[in-house]
């Protein structure tokens, strides 16, 4: 399926991409004490990416993204876990939070920083990564592309597997015939 490339939609989506992301960052930074936080901010960013992919197509999106959504999600989860561990080194329970209040920051004035913000950034990355991965994967099949690019295949698929889209291809001799429930 080829998406109709409407000039109006493409320009509006490219513009909105930045606007939505600004709002998403606002939500991310404002979180913890007010409605907002990493989760909802991550959803905002993911939505901006998805909107952009609708406008320019998943293929182009892949080319300009330059990062693997799963790696982003894993890195985010790692940040969240490591932030939760800070307390353990200080002898407090897991997930203990520490806050820091700076009173004299140039341009900003009063600034409250804390480990919850780091945790939220981790959550933000997880949500962006996971959501975009899921949606892009589904969108690829809608647009008729294979599920994995060639450079991704060795990350997500075993080398002995055929892409499921190649249904006409004859079954290759599999080195692990024992992985089958029934011998063919």
């Amino acid at each position, binding site marked *: 399926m080829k998406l109709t490339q409407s000039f109006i939609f493409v320009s509006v989506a490219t513009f909105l991409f930045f606007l939505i992301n600004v709002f998403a960052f606002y939500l991310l930074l404002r979180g913890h004490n*007010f409605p907002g936080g990493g989760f909802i901010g991550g959803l905002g960013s993911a939505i901006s990416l998805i909107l952009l992919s609708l406008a320019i197509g998943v293929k182009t999106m892949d080319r300009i993204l330059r990062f693997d959504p799963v790696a982003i999600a894993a890195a985010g989860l790692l940040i969240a876990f490591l932030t939760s561990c800070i307390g353990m080194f200080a002898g407090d329970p897991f997930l203990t939070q520490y806050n820091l209040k700076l009173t004299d920051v140039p341009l900003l004035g009063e600034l409250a920083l804390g480990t919850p913000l780091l945790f939220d950034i981790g959550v933000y990355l997880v949500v962006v990564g996971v959501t975009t991965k*899921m949606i892009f994967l*589904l969108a690829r099949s809608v647009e008729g592309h294979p599920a994995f690019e060639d450079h991704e295949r060795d990350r997500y698929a075993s080398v002995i597997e055929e892409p*499921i889209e190649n*249904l006409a291809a004859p079954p290759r001799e599999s080195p692990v015939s024992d992985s089958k429930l*029934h011998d063919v």
Partner: protein
Amino acid sequence: MMFETAILVGILFGFAVWLILQSSFVKILFGFILLSNAANLAMLSSSGSPSGRSAPVVLDGIAVTAMADPLPQALVLTAIVIGFGVLSYLVVLLYRIFLDQKTTNAAELFDESRSQEGGPEQ
């Protein structure tokens, strides 16, 4: 309010089960979506009736007593996210089964008489 919610949860559960028992993949998928909504609603309703209470946001000048119970709301958010993850997995699984077996009918899927090269032989 709580009585109506209980009825609604019951209807959603019943309708979801009916849909899941159909053989079409799409109906099964919608059944699970309804089911997860029903369960989320049941979870949310455990906070009691929200009428006359404010949102659970701590701001200066609002009495803490007149707030809706925030815990079920936090829990239901978690549950929605988990449900979203599992359902998207279900979508992909059904899609893959469709590609592999070329059917969107669950009854046909498990029909032993349908023969295929390399299929079970017991």
